[in-house]
């Protein structure tokens, strides 16, 4: 396989990192543009070709990050922050519950052995408290976000 075909294959793989709607719309065009640029560059000068290809890859990768970030921002806006806070709340509660179960298990297993379990229980307790705090904060933010959403809905309806 010659260098051009190899670069093109790698570039196609890089384009696969774009969000699907973007990829479906622009990947063919971008690949064609890349091929045209490579062909022109190879015809114009032998030296610096590798550096040029590397620049195109880096520039395109920056584009991937930009489009992914845009996608993520849109997703957060459209799916509503309330859902995100609700997920965080349940995750924090689940983590806290697991910690409590773990602490109880360790205490039951260590009962009667006289073993010092402070080194295990203390960090687990701390994590439990942090999980509860995170769950409470997420619940408050969820409520506030929900109220904002309702107000926005009323504004739109009005």
């Amino acid at each position, binding site marked *: 396989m010659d260098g051009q075909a190899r670069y093109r294959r790698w570039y196609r793989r890089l384009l696969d990192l774009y969000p699907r709607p973007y990829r479906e719309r*622009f990947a063919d*065009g*971008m690949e064609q*543009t890349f091929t045209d640029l490579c062909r022109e560059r190879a015809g114009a000068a032998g030296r610096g070709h590798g550096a040029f290809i590397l620049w195109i890859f880096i520039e*395109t990768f920056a*584009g991937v990050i930009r489009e992914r970030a845009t996608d993520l921002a849109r997703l957060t806006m459209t799916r509503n922050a309330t859902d995100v806070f609700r997920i965080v709340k349940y995750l924090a509660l689940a983590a806290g519950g697991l910690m409590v179960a773990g602490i109880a298990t360790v205490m039951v297993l260590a009962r009667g052995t006289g073993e010092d379990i402070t080194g295990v229980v203390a960090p687990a307790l701390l994590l439990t408290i942090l999980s509860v705090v995170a769950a409470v904060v997420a619940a408050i933010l969820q409520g506030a976000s929900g109220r904002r959403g309702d107000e926005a809905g009323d504004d739109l309806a009005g």
Partner: protein
Amino acid sequence: MKQVESDSGGKVRMGPGTLYGSIRRMSEAGLICESDKKIDPDLDDERRVYYSITALGQQTLAVELRRYRQVVAVPRERSLLPEAWGV
């Protein structure tokens, strides 16, 4: 991309990542749209896509140019621009 590099005197280099990202944003904003017009169908690759500026795009461009003119007008009115610039 070559036009941008040429217009900027080689100061701005645009690659496919920036170009197609800009096309997407301008297209979503309704400033440009895909065009059926081909420059030369005989020489053309059928996969090539052409874009043309929309009426909204032309209006936006006019507004932006007016804004630039207003910005340049301020230092000109206050005689802050060297005459050698000829602006």
